């Protein structure tokens, strides 16, 4: 976010003025293995949702492979409550291009794809213009090319293997792993899929060193990250903070709670994260801190709810979302998301029974871990946590 304040932050001149592409200069003097090692030591973890160590992911490209290796950028931002990548594409596109150049050198890739969600027309135009500038300036096209690809509307394409299916001109069905994309990814070749924000962290790591980045965060995760804060707060927006910040501090940073002014619950990491109650917000907002609290940091989309918010209605919104976005490939996900939406719908509309709640919990839990991708495991987070933590509110809507 170092460049966000400038009105022309998306241009090459502005980016260069803020020492942009200095890291790329330095990276060209380093061996690929040294770049991977530096990113490993920085404790950078994937910022798209899964939180996997980035350097380790890069190291999975088979050393003996002699064919093409692809770098794919996941710019299919779609997790409810998340909007940081939109800001990066629009306001700091050259940071992503520089991160791609360095990463491509590290993994020995000559071709990168940037998969931008179809609805992001303005970010797509902005980023495409920046790619053209980079070609004209000779930054791209000399050993590394970038193809900007537009999606066509499907949340599941944010899942990395669903994204690869879509990039190959198919419906976005996730693929069974293994083989992982680093072994067999886009068009059958070894592929690294990284999130936009993750790659934007790479230039400062190379420029200022792994230790500097690691020290910004916690023992197990380096750096700052961009928190998207929305819902009932005074100043919704993107906040770049150390990953060691607590949820309480982050809500204060966003101006505190609006509405009634009294906090009821918070979604800490995008729609698929388990909800936290008002007395659970001292959690630190890193991968392991949220995991220890029984939720996940995911994409760091924070949605704040004050006392006046109906939790059953909030769950209905998400249940509808999962039913709509399930790709239909795996039976437990396809069927359960539909059933659960219908059950939550009838509870919210006053036709539910109290034992519906246990039925939902039972259905939700049975499907966990049975599907090809993590979509359904993500849906379970809200199903279970909203009902378990706010059961009284659901029961009050039920008939018997």
């Amino acid at each position: 976010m170092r460049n966000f304040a400038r009105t022309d932050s998306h241009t090459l001149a502005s980016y260069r003025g803020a020492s942009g592409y200095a890291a790329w200069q330095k990276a060209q003097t380093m061996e690929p293995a040294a770049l991977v090692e530096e990113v490993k030591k920085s404790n950078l973890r994937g910022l798209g949702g899964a939180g996997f160590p980035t350097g380790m992911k890069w190291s999975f490209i088979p050393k003996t492979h002699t064919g093409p290796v692809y770098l794919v950028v996941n710019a299919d931002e779609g997790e409810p409550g998340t909007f940081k990548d939109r800001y990066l594409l629009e306001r700091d596109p050259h940071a992503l291009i520089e991160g791609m150049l360095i990463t491509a050198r590290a993994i020995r890739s000559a071709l990168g794809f940037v998969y931008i969600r179809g609805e992001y027309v303005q970010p797509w135009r902005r980023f495409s213009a920046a790619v053209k500038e980079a070609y004209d300036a000779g930054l791209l096209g000399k050993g590394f090319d970038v193809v900007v690809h537009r999606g066509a509307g499907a949340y599941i394409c944010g899942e990395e293997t669903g994204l690869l299916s879509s990039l190959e001109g198919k419906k976005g069905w996730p693929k069974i792993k293994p083989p992982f994309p680093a072994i067999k990814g886009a068009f059958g070749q070894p592929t690294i899929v990284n999130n936009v924000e993750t790659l934007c962290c790479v230039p400062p790591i190379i420029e200022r060193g792994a230790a500097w980045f690691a020290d910004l965060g916690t023992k197990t995760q380096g750096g700052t990250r961009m928190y998207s804060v929305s819902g009932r707060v005074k100043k919704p927006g993107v906040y770049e903070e150390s990953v060691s910040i607590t949820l309480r501090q982050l809500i204060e940073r966003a101006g505190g709670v609006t509405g009634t002014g009294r906090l009821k619950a918070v979604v800490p990491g995008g729609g698929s994260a388990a909800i936290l109650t008002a007395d659970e917000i001292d959690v630190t907002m890193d991968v392991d801190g949220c995991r220890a609290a029984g939720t996940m940091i995911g994409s760091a989309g924070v949605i704040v709810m004050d006392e006046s918010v109906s939790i059953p209605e909030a769950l209905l919104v998400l249940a509808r979302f999962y039913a709509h976005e399930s790709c239909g490939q795996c039976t437990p996900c396809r069927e359960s998301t539909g059933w659960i939406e219908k059950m939550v719908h009838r509870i919210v509309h006053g036709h539910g029974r109290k034992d519906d709640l246990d039925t939902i919990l039972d259905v939700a839990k049975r499907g966990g871990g049975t599907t090809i991708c993590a979509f359904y495991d993500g849906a379970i987070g809200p199903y279970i946590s909203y009902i378990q933590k706010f059961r009284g509110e659901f029961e009050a809507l039920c008939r018997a």
Partner: protein
Amino acid sequence: MSAPIQFTPAQLAEVRRLQGLYPDKRGALLPVLHMAQDSFGYLSLEAEAYVAGLFDLSPAHVHEVVTFYTLYFQQPKGRHIVAVCHNLSCHLAGAQDLLRHLETRLGIQRGETTEDGRVTLQAVECLCACEAAPMAQVDDRYELNLTAEKVDRILRGLT
């Protein structure tokens, strides 16, 4: 409304350029379907078969792709699309009231198109502009921090 299902020579050159960007030309299917929809208004079975021919794919494969993604239309759509986000942050900011207001103003339900073909109204999932909820995508643009007054003003600008 129904344009002939045939790209111009310039468009065909663009199709070949796009196909050449990918290790397998099929990678260009989604971008070419966007082009086809922009040119032909929507993706009829005839348009799907035409695009399939450009990729040596079966029409069934292209139909499977078209029906999977929300941004492809299989029926004629309005000259303008108003897609209101109704996911969680927009829900908390009154997206349902906004949708009902639009339904009343336009005299249609979500998912429908006005009789004069001017506007298609949709309720869509998270467009990832939650900091400016409630919001909607109007054609290519994101319209942020919407109110009834603001959305009325936007509607008046759609011809």
